[in-house]
Protein backbone atom coordinates (compact mmCIF):
# COMPACT_ATOMS: atom_id res chain seq x y z
CA UNK A 1 0.00 0.00 0.00
CA UNK A 2 2.82 2.34 0.92
CA UNK A 3 4.46 1.67 -2.46
CA UNK A 4 1.18 2.40 -4.24
CA UNK A 5 0.78 5.64 -2.33
CA UNK A 6 4.24 6.79 -3.36
CA UNK A 7 3.33 6.12 -7.00
CA UNK A 8 -0.04 7.81 -6.65
CA UNK A 9 -0.23 9.18 -10.22
CA UNK A 10 0.48 5.82 -11.78
CA UNK A 11 -1.94 4.06 -9.44
CA UNK A 12 -4.69 6.48 -10.43
CA UNK A 13 -3.80 5.94 -14.09
CA UNK A 14 -4.06 2.17 -13.75
CA UNK A 15 -7.39 2.38 -11.94
CA UNK A 16 -8.72 4.75 -14.62
CA UNK A 17 -7.58 2.27 -17.26
CA UNK A 18 -9.48 -0.49 -15.48
CA UNK A 19 -12.61 1.66 -15.23
CA UNK A 20 -12.46 2.39 -18.96
CA UNK A 21 -11.94 -1.29 -19.73
CA UNK A 22 -14.92 -2.27 -17.59
CA UNK A 23 -17.11 0.31 -19.32
CA UNK A 24 -15.98 -1.09 -22.65
CA UNK A 25 -16.97 -4.61 -21.60
CA UNK A 26 -20.22 -3.94 -19.73
CA UNK A 27 -21.98 -1.09 -21.50
CA UNK A 28 -24.18 -1.95 -24.47
CA UNK A 29 -24.59 1.61 -25.69
CA UNK A 30 -22.10 2.36 -28.45
CA UNK A 31 -21.50 5.96 -27.35
CA UNK A 32 -20.69 4.78 -23.83
CA UNK A 33 -18.29 2.22 -25.25
CA UNK A 34 -16.47 5.02 -27.09
CA UNK A 35 -16.37 7.07 -23.88
CA UNK A 36 -14.81 4.07 -22.11
CA UNK A 37 -12.18 3.82 -24.81
CA UNK A 38 -11.37 7.51 -24.37
CA UNK A 39 -11.06 7.07 -20.60
CA UNK A 40 -8.52 4.32 -21.28
CA UNK A 41 -6.62 6.72 -23.55
CA UNK A 42 -6.60 9.39 -20.87
CA UNK A 43 -5.24 6.90 -18.35
CA UNK A 44 -2.38 6.12 -20.72
CA UNK A 45 -1.54 9.83 -21.14
CA UNK A 46 -1.50 10.31 -17.37
CA UNK A 47 0.74 7.27 -17.00
CA UNK A 48 3.21 8.44 -19.64
CA UNK A 49 3.31 12.01 -18.34
CA UNK A 50 3.95 10.81 -14.80
CA UNK A 51 6.73 8.54 -16.05
CA UNK A 52 8.53 11.50 -17.57
CA UNK A 53 8.40 13.74 -14.52
CA UNK A 54 11.48 14.23 -12.36
CA UNK A 55 10.95 16.11 -9.12
CA UNK A 56 12.53 19.53 -8.79
CA UNK A 57 13.24 19.98 -12.50
CA UNK A 58 11.70 22.26 -15.09
CA UNK A 59 9.87 21.73 -18.38
CA UNK A 60 12.29 21.00 -21.23
CA UNK A 61 12.50 24.51 -22.68
CA UNK A 62 16.05 25.80 -22.64
CA UNK A 63 16.33 29.07 -20.71
CA UNK A 64 19.52 31.15 -20.52
CA UNK A 65 21.51 28.53 -22.41
CA UNK A 66 21.49 25.96 -19.62
CA UNK A 67 21.85 22.57 -21.36
CA UNK A 68 22.49 20.15 -18.52
CA UNK A 69 20.56 16.94 -18.03
CA UNK A 70 20.01 17.76 -14.36
CA UNK A 71 18.03 20.90 -15.21
CA UNK A 72 15.09 19.50 -17.21
CA UNK A 73 12.56 16.69 -17.08
CA UNK A 74 12.40 13.91 -19.66
CA UNK A 75 11.02 15.24 -23.00
CA UNK A 76 10.35 11.87 -24.64
CA UNK A 77 7.02 10.95 -22.92
CA UNK A 78 5.63 14.36 -23.98
CA UNK A 79 6.19 13.45 -27.63
CA UNK A 80 4.62 10.03 -27.11
CA UNK A 81 1.56 11.57 -25.44
CA UNK A 82 1.20 13.92 -28.41
CA UNK A 83 1.14 10.96 -30.80
CA UNK A 84 -1.39 9.24 -28.58
CA UNK A 85 -3.72 12.24 -28.49
CA UNK A 86 -3.70 12.61 -32.26
CA UNK A 87 -4.43 8.94 -32.89
CA UNK A 88 -7.16 8.96 -30.23
CA UNK A 89 -8.87 11.96 -31.84
CA UNK A 90 -8.74 10.29 -35.24
CA UNK A 91 -10.23 6.99 -34.20
CA UNK A 92 -12.84 8.65 -32.00
CA UNK A 93 -13.97 10.58 -35.06
CA UNK A 94 -14.20 7.45 -37.20
CA UNK A 95 -16.01 5.46 -34.49
CA UNK A 96 -18.55 8.23 -33.95
CA UNK A 97 -19.16 8.45 -37.70
CA UNK A 98 -19.77 4.70 -37.84
CA UNK A 99 -22.12 5.00 -34.87
CA UNK A 100 -24.09 7.73 -36.65
CA UNK A 101 -24.46 5.49 -39.69
CA UNK A 102 -25.59 2.54 -37.54
CA UNK A 103 -28.13 4.74 -35.75
CA UNK A 104 -29.53 6.02 -39.02
CA UNK A 105 -30.00 2.47 -40.24
CA UNK A 106 -31.29 0.68 -37.13
CA UNK A 107 -32.60 3.56 -34.97
CA UNK A 108 -30.90 2.21 -31.86
CA UNK A 109 -27.52 2.43 -30.18
CA UNK A 110 -27.76 -0.91 -28.34
CA UNK A 111 -25.08 -3.18 -29.78
CA UNK A 112 -27.04 -6.40 -29.04
CA UNK A 113 -30.18 -5.13 -30.76
CA UNK A 114 -28.10 -4.02 -33.73
CA UNK A 115 -26.50 -7.48 -33.93
CA UNK A 116 -29.95 -9.15 -33.82
CA UNK A 117 -31.35 -6.86 -36.50
CA UNK A 118 -28.31 -7.41 -38.71
CA UNK A 119 -28.71 -11.17 -38.33
CA UNK A 120 -32.36 -10.86 -39.33
CA UNK A 121 -31.30 -8.93 -42.39
CA UNK A 122 -28.93 -11.69 -43.46
CA UNK A 123 -31.48 -14.50 -43.12
Amino acid at each position, binding site marked *: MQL*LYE*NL*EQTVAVILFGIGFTILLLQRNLIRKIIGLNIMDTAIYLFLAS*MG*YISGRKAPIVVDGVT*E*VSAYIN*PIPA*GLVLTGIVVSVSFTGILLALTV*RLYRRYNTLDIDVIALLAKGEDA
Partner: protein
Amino acid sequence: MSKRRSDWQTRPQARIRKWFQQGFTALDDEIINQISQQTIQQPEVSQMMEAQREAMDTRRYERSLALERLERHELQAWVRTRGRKAIGRVYVALALAMAVLMIFFLLETVAHMPRFGDPNAPVTNEVTERYITRGVEETGAVNIVAGMILDYRAFDTLGESTVLFIAASAVLILLRIDRRKDGTPVQELIAAESDDRHYEPRADRILQGSVMVLTPIILLFGIYIILNGHLSPGGGFSGGAIISAGLILYLDAFGFDKAGRFFTYKTFAWVSFFSLSFYALAKAYSFYMGANGLPSGIPLGTPGAILSGGLIMPLNIAVGMVVSCTMYIFYALFRKGGL
Protein backbone atom coordinates in the same frame (compact mmCIF):
# COMPACT_ATOMS: atom_id res chain seq x y z
CA MET B 1 -42.75 -38.67 -61.85
CA SER B 2 -44.64 -41.36 -63.61
CA LYS B 3 -47.75 -39.24 -63.73
CA ARG B 4 -45.89 -36.48 -65.44
CA ARG B 5 -44.41 -38.78 -68.01
CA SER B 6 -47.79 -40.32 -68.81
CA ASP B 7 -49.18 -36.82 -69.21
CA TRP B 8 -46.45 -36.06 -71.61
CA GLN B 9 -47.04 -39.25 -73.54
CA THR B 10 -50.78 -38.79 -73.80
CA ARG B 11 -50.94 -35.14 -74.65
CA PRO B 12 -52.50 -34.39 -78.08
CA GLN B 13 -49.31 -33.51 -79.92
CA ALA B 14 -47.72 -36.83 -78.95
CA ARG B 15 -50.77 -38.68 -80.06
CA ILE B 16 -50.81 -36.92 -83.41
CA ARG B 17 -47.14 -37.66 -83.89
CA LYS B 18 -47.75 -41.31 -83.07
CA TRP B 19 -50.66 -41.39 -85.49
CA PHE B 20 -48.46 -39.97 -88.24
CA GLN B 21 -45.66 -42.38 -87.58
CA GLN B 22 -47.50 -45.62 -86.99
CA GLY B 23 -51.02 -45.26 -88.32
CA PHE B 24 -54.31 -46.02 -86.56
CA THR B 25 -53.27 -49.33 -85.13
CA ALA B 26 -51.01 -47.75 -82.59
CA LEU B 27 -53.81 -45.59 -81.21
CA ASP B 28 -56.07 -48.56 -81.06
CA ASP B 29 -53.44 -50.49 -79.13
CA GLU B 30 -53.18 -47.69 -76.70
CA ILE B 31 -56.89 -47.49 -76.11
CA ILE B 32 -57.06 -51.23 -75.61
CA ASN B 33 -54.17 -51.06 -73.17
CA GLN B 34 -55.83 -48.36 -71.15
CA ILE B 35 -59.11 -50.18 -70.93
CA SER B 36 -57.43 -53.40 -69.91
CA GLN B 37 -55.35 -51.62 -67.24
CA GLN B 38 -58.45 -50.05 -65.78
CA THR B 39 -60.11 -53.35 -65.56
CA ILE B 40 -57.12 -55.15 -64.09
CA GLN B 41 -56.44 -52.56 -61.40
CA GLN B 42 -58.07 -54.26 -58.46
CA PRO B 43 -56.27 -53.47 -55.17
CA GLU B 44 -54.83 -56.53 -53.54
CA VAL B 45 -54.86 -57.15 -49.83
CA SER B 46 -51.12 -57.17 -49.38
CA GLN B 47 -50.80 -53.91 -51.26
CA MET B 48 -53.41 -52.31 -49.02
CA MET B 49 -51.62 -53.50 -45.92
CA GLU B 50 -48.37 -52.15 -47.21
CA ALA B 51 -49.94 -48.82 -47.93
CA GLN B 52 -51.37 -48.72 -44.43
CA ARG B 53 -48.02 -49.54 -42.90
CA GLU B 54 -46.39 -46.87 -44.96
CA ALA B 55 -48.94 -44.31 -43.87
CA MET B 56 -48.36 -45.26 -40.25
CA ASP B 57 -44.64 -44.97 -40.69
CA THR B 58 -44.94 -41.54 -42.20
CA ARG B 59 -47.30 -40.47 -39.45
CA ARG B 60 -44.88 -41.67 -36.77
CA TYR B 61 -42.02 -39.94 -38.50
CA GLU B 62 -43.93 -36.71 -38.75
CA ARG B 63 -44.86 -36.95 -35.10
CA SER B 64 -41.26 -37.44 -34.03
CA LEU B 65 -40.27 -34.52 -36.21
CA ALA B 66 -42.93 -32.34 -34.62
CA LEU B 67 -41.81 -33.39 -31.14
CA GLU B 68 -38.24 -32.56 -32.00
CA ARG B 69 -39.30 -29.21 -33.35
CA LEU B 70 -41.30 -28.51 -30.21
CA GLU B 71 -38.29 -29.39 -28.07
CA ARG B 72 -36.07 -27.17 -30.08
CA HIS B 73 -38.61 -24.38 -29.88
CA GLU B 74 -38.80 -24.74 -26.12
CA LEU B 75 -35.02 -24.66 -25.91
CA GLN B 76 -34.95 -21.58 -28.07
CA ALA B 77 -37.59 -19.94 -25.94
CA TRP B 78 -35.57 -20.75 -22.84
CA VAL B 79 -32.42 -19.37 -24.45
CA ARG B 80 -34.28 -16.29 -25.51
CA THR B 81 -35.64 -15.49 -22.05
CA ARG B 82 -34.02 -17.01 -19.01
CA GLY B 83 -30.96 -18.37 -20.78
CA ARG B 84 -30.05 -14.99 -22.12
CA LYS B 85 -30.40 -13.52 -18.66
CA ALA B 86 -28.20 -16.26 -17.21
CA ILE B 87 -25.60 -15.83 -19.93
CA GLY B 88 -25.70 -12.08 -19.40
CA ARG B 89 -25.11 -12.53 -15.70
CA VAL B 90 -22.22 -14.91 -16.31
CA TYR B 91 -20.79 -12.43 -18.82
CA VAL B 92 -21.02 -9.55 -16.38
CA ALA B 93 -19.38 -11.60 -13.64
CA LEU B 94 -16.59 -12.73 -15.96
CA ALA B 95 -16.01 -9.21 -17.25
CA LEU B 96 -15.86 -7.76 -13.75
CA ALA B 97 -13.50 -10.53 -12.63
CA MET B 98 -11.29 -9.91 -15.65
CA ALA B 99 -11.19 -6.16 -15.06
CA VAL B 100 -10.45 -6.56 -11.36
CA LEU B 101 -7.75 -9.11 -12.13
CA MET B 102 -6.21 -6.79 -14.70
CA ILE B 103 -6.25 -3.83 -12.31
CA PHE B 104 -4.71 -6.03 -9.62
CA PHE B 105 -1.84 -7.17 -11.82
CA LEU B 106 -1.23 -3.64 -13.11
CA LEU B 107 -1.21 -2.29 -9.54
CA GLU B 108 1.25 -5.01 -8.61
CA THR B 109 3.43 -3.81 -11.49
CA VAL B 110 3.06 -0.16 -10.47
CA ALA B 111 4.21 -1.03 -6.96
CA HIS B 112 7.47 -2.30 -8.41
CA MET B 113 8.01 0.66 -10.73
CA PRO B 114 10.56 3.35 -9.94
CA ARG B 115 9.26 6.08 -7.64
CA PHE B 116 7.43 9.09 -9.04
CA GLY B 117 9.95 11.84 -9.84
CA ASP B 118 12.95 9.58 -9.43
CA PRO B 119 15.92 11.09 -11.33
CA ASN B 120 17.57 7.66 -11.72
CA ALA B 121 14.56 5.96 -13.32
CA PRO B 122 15.45 3.83 -16.37
CA VAL B 123 13.25 6.08 -18.53
CA THR B 124 15.86 8.83 -18.20
CA ASN B 125 18.56 7.21 -20.28
CA GLU B 126 21.18 8.34 -22.77
CA VAL B 127 18.55 9.30 -25.38
CA THR B 128 17.11 11.90 -23.03
CA GLU B 129 20.59 13.11 -22.23
CA ARG B 130 21.40 13.53 -25.89
CA TYR B 131 18.16 15.39 -26.63
CA ILE B 132 18.69 17.80 -23.76
CA THR B 133 22.42 18.45 -24.07
CA ARG B 134 22.76 18.61 -27.86
CA GLY B 135 19.17 19.41 -28.85
CA VAL B 136 19.53 23.17 -29.06
CA GLU B 137 22.67 23.20 -31.16
CA GLU B 138 21.48 20.40 -33.46
CA THR B 139 17.90 21.51 -34.11
CA GLY B 140 18.07 25.20 -33.24
CA ALA B 141 14.84 24.97 -31.25
CA VAL B 142 14.72 26.17 -27.66
CA ASN B 143 11.67 23.97 -26.98
CA ILE B 144 13.29 20.54 -26.76
CA VAL B 145 9.99 18.71 -27.26
CA ALA B 146 9.35 20.61 -30.51
CA GLY B 147 12.89 19.87 -31.63
CA MET B 148 12.34 16.22 -30.82
CA ILE B 149 8.99 15.69 -32.58
CA LEU B 150 9.76 17.81 -35.64
CA ASP B 151 13.44 17.05 -36.14
CA TYR B 152 14.64 13.85 -34.53
CA ARG B 153 11.30 12.11 -34.83
CA ALA B 154 9.82 14.03 -37.77
CA PHE B 155 8.84 10.86 -39.61
CA ASP B 156 6.56 9.94 -36.71
CA THR B 157 4.87 13.34 -36.87
CA LEU B 158 4.32 13.00 -40.62
CA GLY B 159 2.56 9.72 -39.86
CA GLU B 160 0.40 11.46 -37.27
CA SER B 161 -0.70 14.18 -39.67
CA THR B 162 -1.45 11.53 -42.27
CA VAL B 163 -3.52 9.58 -39.74
CA LEU B 164 -5.53 12.73 -39.04
CA PHE B 165 -6.04 13.38 -42.74
CA ILE B 166 -7.12 9.78 -43.35
CA ALA B 167 -9.55 9.96 -40.43
CA ALA B 168 -11.07 13.12 -41.89
CA SER B 169 -11.40 11.41 -45.28
CA ALA B 170 -13.05 8.35 -43.70
CA VAL B 171 -15.55 10.50 -41.82
CA LEU B 172 -16.18 12.38 -45.06
CA ILE B 173 -16.95 9.11 -46.85
CA LEU B 174 -19.20 7.89 -44.05
CA LEU B 175 -21.20 11.03 -43.32
CA ARG B 176 -21.23 13.24 -46.40
CA ILE B 177 -24.63 13.63 -48.05
CA ASP B 178 -24.20 14.30 -51.75
CA ARG B 179 -26.50 16.08 -54.13
CA ARG B 180 -27.66 14.26 -57.22
CA LYS B 181 -25.70 14.70 -60.40
CA ASP B 182 -28.02 17.38 -61.76
CA GLY B 183 -27.69 19.37 -58.55
CA THR B 184 -31.08 18.64 -57.00
CA PRO B 185 -30.91 17.80 -53.29
CA VAL B 186 -31.57 14.28 -51.99
CA GLN B 187 -34.29 13.63 -49.41
CA GLU B 188 -31.65 13.08 -46.68
CA LEU B 189 -30.06 16.43 -47.43
CA ILE B 190 -33.37 18.23 -47.06
CA ALA B 191 -33.98 16.42 -43.76
CA ALA B 192 -30.51 17.34 -42.50
CA GLU B 193 -31.00 20.99 -43.50
CA SER B 194 -34.34 21.21 -41.71
CA ASP B 195 -32.85 19.50 -38.62
CA ASP B 196 -30.01 21.98 -38.64
CA ARG B 197 -32.36 24.93 -38.98
CA HIS B 198 -34.57 23.57 -36.24
CA TYR B 199 -32.02 22.64 -33.57
CA GLU B 200 -29.10 25.01 -34.04
CA PRO B 201 -29.04 28.69 -33.04
CA ARG B 202 -29.70 31.04 -35.91
CA ALA B 203 -28.89 34.72 -36.11
CA ASP B 204 -28.45 34.94 -32.34
CA ARG B 205 -27.49 38.55 -31.58
CA ILE B 206 -25.62 37.80 -28.37
CA LEU B 207 -23.66 34.95 -29.92
CA GLN B 208 -22.85 36.95 -33.03
CA GLY B 209 -21.72 39.95 -31.04
CA SER B 210 -19.43 37.95 -28.79
CA VAL B 211 -18.09 35.95 -31.73
CA MET B 212 -17.21 39.16 -33.55
CA VAL B 213 -14.96 40.03 -30.62
CA LEU B 214 -13.71 36.56 -29.77
CA THR B 215 -12.96 34.90 -33.11
CA PRO B 216 -10.11 37.22 -34.17
CA ILE B 217 -8.51 36.86 -30.74
CA ILE B 218 -8.81 33.07 -30.82
CA LEU B 219 -7.41 32.87 -34.34
CA LEU B 220 -4.53 35.21 -33.41
CA PHE B 221 -3.77 33.15 -30.32
CA GLY B 222 -3.73 29.96 -32.41
CA ILE B 223 -1.36 31.54 -34.95
CA TYR B 224 0.85 32.77 -32.10
CA ILE B 225 1.04 29.27 -30.65
CA ILE B 226 1.89 27.75 -34.02
CA LEU B 227 4.57 30.34 -34.81
CA ASN B 228 6.07 30.09 -31.33
CA GLY B 229 6.08 26.31 -31.38
CA HIS B 230 9.86 26.09 -31.22
CA LEU B 231 10.20 28.73 -28.47
CA SER B 232 7.44 27.97 -25.99
CA PRO B 233 4.97 25.20 -25.15
CA GLY B 234 2.68 24.54 -28.07
CA GLY B 235 3.16 23.79 -31.71
CA GLY B 236 1.22 22.72 -34.74
CA PHE B 237 -1.23 20.35 -33.09
CA SER B 238 -2.36 22.56 -30.23
CA GLY B 239 -2.37 25.74 -32.32
CA GLY B 240 -4.34 24.03 -35.07
CA ALA B 241 -6.90 22.84 -32.54
CA ILE B 242 -7.28 26.41 -31.23
CA ILE B 243 -7.71 27.84 -34.74
CA SER B 244 -10.32 25.22 -35.56
CA ALA B 245 -12.14 26.13 -32.32
CA GLY B 246 -12.31 29.73 -33.54
CA LEU B 247 -13.61 28.63 -36.95
CA ILE B 248 -16.24 26.40 -35.36
CA LEU B 249 -17.38 29.26 -33.14
CA TYR B 250 -17.78 31.44 -36.23
CA LEU B 251 -19.72 28.69 -37.99
CA ASP B 252 -22.03 28.31 -35.00
CA ALA B 253 -22.79 32.02 -34.89
CA PHE B 254 -23.15 32.83 -38.57
CA GLY B 255 -24.24 29.56 -40.14
CA PHE B 256 -23.03 27.55 -43.08
CA ASP B 257 -23.78 30.19 -45.71
CA LYS B 258 -21.24 32.68 -44.41
CA ALA B 259 -18.66 30.09 -43.35
CA GLY B 260 -18.92 28.48 -46.79
CA ARG B 261 -17.43 31.65 -48.31
CA PHE B 262 -13.96 30.83 -47.00
CA PHE B 263 -14.10 27.11 -46.30
CA THR B 264 -15.30 24.57 -48.84
CA TYR B 265 -14.34 21.02 -49.73
CA LYS B 266 -11.91 22.49 -52.20
CA THR B 267 -10.18 24.46 -49.44
CA PHE B 268 -9.93 21.35 -47.33
CA ALA B 269 -8.51 19.27 -50.16
CA TRP B 270 -5.96 21.85 -51.31
CA VAL B 271 -4.78 22.90 -47.85
CA SER B 272 -4.34 19.30 -46.75
CA PHE B 273 -2.64 18.36 -49.98
CA PHE B 274 -0.18 21.26 -49.92
CA SER B 275 0.61 20.94 -46.23
CA LEU B 276 1.19 17.21 -46.29
CA SER B 277 3.21 17.24 -49.48
CA PHE B 278 5.30 20.18 -48.29
CA TYR B 279 5.97 18.35 -45.05
CA ALA B 280 6.91 15.14 -46.86
CA LEU B 281 9.16 16.89 -49.38
CA ALA B 282 10.92 19.03 -46.79
CA LYS B 283 11.59 16.08 -44.53
CA ALA B 284 12.65 13.90 -47.47
CA TYR B 285 15.19 16.58 -48.39
CA SER B 286 16.60 16.84 -44.89
CA PHE B 287 16.63 13.06 -44.39
CA TYR B 288 18.45 12.58 -47.69
CA MET B 289 21.04 15.22 -46.84
CA GLY B 290 21.49 13.94 -43.30
CA ALA B 291 21.84 10.31 -44.34
CA ASN B 292 24.55 11.17 -46.84
CA GLY B 293 26.40 13.44 -44.44
CA LEU B 294 25.86 16.54 -46.58
CA PRO B 295 25.22 20.01 -45.17
CA SER B 296 21.49 20.69 -45.48
CA GLY B 297 21.94 24.38 -46.23
CA ILE B 298 19.07 25.38 -43.95
CA PRO B 299 20.24 28.05 -41.47
CA LEU B 300 19.43 27.17 -37.87
CA GLY B 301 19.53 30.77 -36.66
CA THR B 302 20.21 31.94 -33.13
CA PRO B 303 18.30 29.84 -30.61
CA GLY B 304 15.53 31.86 -29.02
CA ALA B 305 14.84 34.13 -32.00
CA ILE B 306 11.56 33.79 -33.86
CA LEU B 307 13.33 32.90 -37.11
CA SER B 308 15.30 29.94 -35.84
CA GLY B 309 15.12 26.21 -35.72
CA GLY B 310 15.53 25.62 -39.44
CA LEU B 311 12.57 23.67 -40.78
CA ILE B 312 10.68 23.45 -37.51
CA MET B 313 8.53 26.55 -37.94
CA PRO B 314 7.34 25.79 -41.53
CA LEU B 315 6.61 22.21 -40.49
CA ASN B 316 4.63 23.48 -37.50
CA ILE B 317 2.61 25.68 -39.85
CA ALA B 318 1.90 22.73 -42.15
CA VAL B 319 0.80 20.52 -39.25
CA GLY B 320 -1.35 23.31 -37.82
CA MET B 321 -3.16 23.79 -41.13
CA VAL B 322 -3.90 20.07 -41.46
CA VAL B 323 -5.15 19.86 -37.87
CA SER B 324 -7.41 22.92 -38.09
CA CYS B 325 -8.95 21.78 -41.39
CA THR B 326 -9.53 18.28 -40.02
CA MET B 327 -11.21 19.46 -36.82
CA TYR B 328 -13.42 21.93 -38.68
CA ILE B 329 -14.55 19.33 -41.19
CA PHE B 330 -15.25 16.83 -38.38
CA TYR B 331 -17.60 19.36 -36.81
CA ALA B 332 -19.33 20.28 -40.06
CA LEU B 333 -19.87 16.65 -41.03
CA PHE B 334 -21.22 15.60 -37.67
CA ARG B 335 -23.55 18.57 -37.56
CA LYS B 336 -25.07 18.56 -41.02
CA GLY B 337 -23.36 15.99 -43.19
CA GLY B 338 -21.54 18.49 -45.37
CA LEU B 339 -20.16 21.98 -45.61
